[in-house]
């Protein structure tokens, strides 16, 4: 009897001790949209069921990128956080030793090797676990296309324009644009410019380095600008005053047949109209085989190099957990973006044209992987200016000035 009592007592002590030990570990999650928030919450619930002694708390805050940067520069880094490993800003964090290297962890082998390659740091090592892929595409309303009698999806620029004309002839507005935020204009510009002129980022890099000017290569950039303007001829009115959410809403409710946006919007579009027959195809250039699909790593998880050993252990455990195929599948199903992990399937056949294109390997990354955010932000402003006044000469001049201004 005494023995049992002693054992119960000891057990109680161990339990209380371990409960006192179970400090909450913060997971700083950068995406505010409903889809990813729910996806992480579901996976975390499963994680807690398997590890009742560990408590991870998700922290999502407005202006997450800014807040994360401020926390790092003030030495208050969240132990686990999500980030974008292909961007130069992330590489800056790695270079300064803020992020734990993940090499040697078994779970990395569960990731699509192409995505590992894409997310590697300059030193060839992996610092973040890629969870999902993003892509820029033309999302379209399959029902409208069928009603108007458009078969298949356009593969070249000429075909796209033919589709637009056909839609206009049928009394349908082809495009919904939302150009109020320079960032959205910029995403469209990034995708269209790379599809039109695959070498555009490298050229911008050479301009940043002072080896060339945009004016030297005016024809190529003019062509991009002309195409931006051309597409806006087919747009719903007041696109400059339209915010992204309204753009998605207009498209989702059938006011326009197409919408150029990122995979991140897919979930939101479907929330707005769950019955929408939503398809997607890559943004076409002149020749199908040569115009790359803009795709990158959308969500990736990493661990602070300055976390305590216990926090790091918890972090690794969580990364291992979320990278298991069944959990990755769950996450991807809720979030709505294709997973980076092997053994998962992307269930939606209507996005096949994009997935096929991605499989050909003719892909490109976001501008942010090669130039700083200052440069891209400045470029966005100039492109937004082009949409406002349609002045191509000012736009060419503006691009050079913008890159110079960003060099501060």
């Amino acid at each position, binding site marked *: 009897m005494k023995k049992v009592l002693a054992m119960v007592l000891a057990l109680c002590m161990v339990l209380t001790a371990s409960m006192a030990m179970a400090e909450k570990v913060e997971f700083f999650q950068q995406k505010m949209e*409903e889809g990813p928030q729910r996806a992480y919450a579901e996976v975390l619930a499963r994680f807690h069921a398997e590890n009742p002694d560990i408590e991870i*708390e998700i922290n*999502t*805050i*407005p202006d997450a990128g800014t807040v994360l940067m*401020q926390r790092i*520069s*003030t030495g208050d880094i969240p132990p686990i956080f999500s980030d974008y490993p292909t961007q130069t800003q992330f590489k800056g964090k790695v270079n300064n030793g803020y992020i734990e290297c993940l090499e040697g962890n078994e779970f990395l082998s569960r990731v699509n090797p192409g995505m590992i390659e894409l997310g590697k740091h300059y030193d060839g090592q992996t610092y973040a676990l890629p969870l999902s892929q993003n892509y820029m595409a033309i999302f379209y309303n399959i029902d409208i296309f069928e009603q108007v009698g458009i078969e298949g999806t356009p593969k070249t620029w000429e075909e796209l324009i033919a589709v637009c004309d056909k839609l206009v002839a049928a009394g349908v507005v082809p495009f919904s644009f939302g150009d109020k935020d320079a960032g959205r204009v910029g995403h469209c510009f990034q995708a269209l410019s790379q599809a039109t002129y695959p070498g555009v980022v490298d050229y911008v890099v050479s301009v940043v380095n002072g080896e060339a000017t945009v004016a030297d290569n005016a024809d190529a950039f003019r062509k991009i600008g002309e195409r931006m303007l051309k597409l806006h001829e087919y747009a719903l009115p007041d696109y400059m005053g339209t915010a992204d959410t309204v753009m998605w809403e207009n498209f989702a409710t059938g006011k326009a047949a197409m919408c150029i946006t990122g995979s991140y919007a897919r979930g939101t579009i479907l929330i707005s109209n769950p019955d929408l027959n939503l398809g997607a195809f890559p943004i076409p250039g002149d020749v199908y085989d040569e115009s790359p699909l803009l795709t990158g790593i959308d969500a990736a998880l990493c661990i602070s190099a300055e976390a305590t050993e216990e926090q790091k252990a918890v972090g690794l455990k969580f990364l291992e957990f979320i990278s298991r195929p069944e959990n990755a599948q769950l996450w991807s199903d809720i979030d709505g973006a294709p997973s980076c992990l092997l053994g998962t399937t992307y269930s939606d056949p209507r996005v096949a044209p994009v997935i096929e294109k991605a499989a050909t390997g003719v892909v490109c990354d976001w501008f942010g992987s090669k130039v700083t955010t200052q440069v891209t932000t400045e470029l966005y402003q100039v492109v937004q200016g082009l949409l406002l006044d349609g002045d191509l000469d000012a736009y060419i001049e503006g691009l050079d000035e913008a890159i110079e201004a960003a060099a501060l």
Partner: protein
Amino acid sequence: MTSVNPKMKVGTSMVHNRGETFVWHSLRNITLAAGLLLILFPMWLVLINCFKSLEEASQSFFALPQSVNLDNVRELLQSQNYFRYVGNSLLVTCVSMAVVAVFIPLVSYAIARNMHRGYYRFLYVYIMLGLFIPSQIILLPIVKQMSSLKMLNSWGLILLYITFSLTRGVFLFVNYIRALPIEIEEAAQIDGCTVVQTYFRIVLHLIKPMISTLVIMDVLWYWNDFQLPLFLLNRSRDMWTLPLFQYNFKTEYSFDYPMAFTAYIISLLPVLVVYCCCQKYIISGLTAGAVKS
């Protein structure tokens, strides 16, 4: 140039022109009506739409809701930690205010009554420097400092509010107190009152109007501030104040705008209640102090 001499300009008629009065009154009434419309119309839109479902709102944005539908409110109160945020906001606002209301007038009193001494003159100018410094310059250093002091929490925020309130507070009070007659205080001191006794027995009563002005201005600031809480209280949702909760809806419910409107309304609610009860005192309180500054 603009010296006051009402007799300088002599009108042509002795009797007040009725037509002119009429024109003036109609102009005035039109101005006021337009202002009223401009202020109330957006609030009205927000209010009626928070009782609608998304479908109903997109069909008829301007119409009255078909029924008083409290689903949005219910969902928000269930899914979000609303009362926690109200509690956090209350804590930060009340504690900061209590300290500031006692502390700033006292400091200003010390400065105002000793302006002939070098130290106090220096202190005054030193604190007044803050009038010229844009807030952006201190944002990062201050967060860095708070972080190294392990004060990234409500108490750190309160401490910063107290400090940052000094400039405006001292500016308002020092001038106000200096204009008060010093004789009564001198008499009290001869009767054996200490400085603190003199302050609480005499000075405090004289500066009451100014204190109410300070309290109102600062409470509005603490309650509505967004930037400092964003940078100091970002480690967990449990620490959020109401403005963070409001801003959150910009992205989280970007689609479901009736929901976002509901969030705005319910976060305005505490202020609204206080304002409706005490608007008379609030406005007259502000006026009282403002005359002298």
